[in-house]
């Protein structure tokens, strides 16, 4: 089985605001958090489009902050030791791939990335494309500070 990976040449897609575009890539920025975003939703689609918080960054790109609810996170822009390629699956037909992938800690990936198997006949093979390379990320590693918002 062969899964081709194309390289995206689409330069017409929207760009990030300049404050974020300057960090590494003009269309994608990576934000690293310790832990995960905990969303209190009853239904998975409830979160679509909802506001998470406010991301800011100073002009010198030294002090990014993220305000989520009453937590204020302070971070920094850090270089990623080995650049990361962002790969995106463009054909959304094969939705159950997420269940087929078996991932264990630091073991090799079973080759089920978007492959069509016997049972999935009728779904077109997903296409993967590389959107770009990212060499820097925003990382929030300090504990959040509680803030009180003036309403």
């Amino acid at each position, binding site marked *: 089985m062969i899964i081709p990976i194309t390289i995206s*040449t689409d330069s017409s897609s929207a760009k990030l605001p300049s404050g974020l575009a300057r960090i590494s890539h003009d269309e994608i920025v990576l934000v690293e958090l310790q832990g995960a975003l905990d969303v209190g939703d009853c239904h998975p689609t409830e979160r679509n489009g909802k*506001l998470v918080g406010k991301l800011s960054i100073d002009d010198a790109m030294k002090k990014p902050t993220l305000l989520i609810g009453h937590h204020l996170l302070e971070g920094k822009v850090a270089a990623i030791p080995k650049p990361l390629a962002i790969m995106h699956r463009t054909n959304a037909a094969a939705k159950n791939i997420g269940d087929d992938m078996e*991932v264990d800690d630091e073991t*090799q*990936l079973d080759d089920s990335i978007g492959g069509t198997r016997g049972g999935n006949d009728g779904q077109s093979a997903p296409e993967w494309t590389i959107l770009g390379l990212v060499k820097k990320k925003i990382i929030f590693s300090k504990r959040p500070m509680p803030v009180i918002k003036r309403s």
Partner: protein
Amino acid sequence: MPDFDLHFSPFSTDEAASYKLIELPSELVGLLENAIQSSDPLGLVIKGDPTEDAVLCTRDKTYSIRTVNLSNTLLVVTPPPDTEFNFAEDAVVIRDQLNEILELAPAVPRISKLVGRLRGREYDETNEEDDEDEEVDSDGSSRYTYTQAREEIQASDAELDVCLKQKRILIIKDELRPISPSYLNNILELTLNVLVSESLSHSAASLDRLTSALAGDHGISRVVSAQVLAWFGEIQAGGKWKMNEDEVIKELGLGILREHKNDDPIEKGAFVAKWKLAVGDTFADRVSLNLLAGNYLEGRPVGRIEHEYLTYFPSSTLPTDPAARFADLFLTRTKWRVEDITPFLSDIAVNNKERDKLLLKYCRAISESGAVWYTARAQYNG
């Protein structure tokens, strides 16, 4: 300080798990950056069966893929996609939340599957008159094509071609046929004869005249002879073939050596003499056992200890899995010197550093009579 509203993407549930981050080794960074700049398609693919571990192939290299779990979460943030949703001017959206990245490491191409698939499909002099349109042979083994190999074998295209050349596999009407070793030897001997009889120089022989003579006088199909000559030399502009003397000499040596497996070793001097005879006077000086490294064992068998004897022991028949290979090697001999064991590791280690790591992992080094010897670590000895 400018601030940006951070939202979940309007298609957050659909987009979950549609992004993957791949950590790039340094050589791929440059390659990818150039490709993005110049819109070069680059030919990157991921290959593998559902039962195998995936590999990523460029046009000429293979990389294994491992998933590394992160304790932190990485958010992929982009400008909002086009929807009716009313986002503020400078809003950005989270498209995906990731806890793992894919790590690439250079890997040896996995071609053992190919050898298995081609069993029973050898080509020799009985096939010269073959009707090549038969799908299935009389003994039930079916055709395996070059196209199939490109899709199924976990190797880059360039590495697959090199492998076909090294393993002496012919491509006849897209089907892969390994050539029988004795038939190959025959063709090489005939080629050397033709070079002499037609007074052709071995560094610039007319390809046409060669293949015609082989076809006309000896019944060897041009499709076959052209490929064999390409394996053993360079086809230059103007239709001239420049022989790779060492490769030809090596193959003729192997032809003789193959007769002498474990039960019938040949005395070293006698072997070299026979070999020189086979290659002819022009090339006799280039005959050297170094050419056959990784294909023979030298030793003094019980009862014949006055001389060194050689036995045929090709690394191509050893297992590709390192643990199994070392087990086999130590079953054959309980201890090895570095220079004796390294030729049998060259096809399973990408480079010298990897090979040394394998030696460290699977062997114990001991110092004896002034030299370093490798022995098996206890658990791998059967």
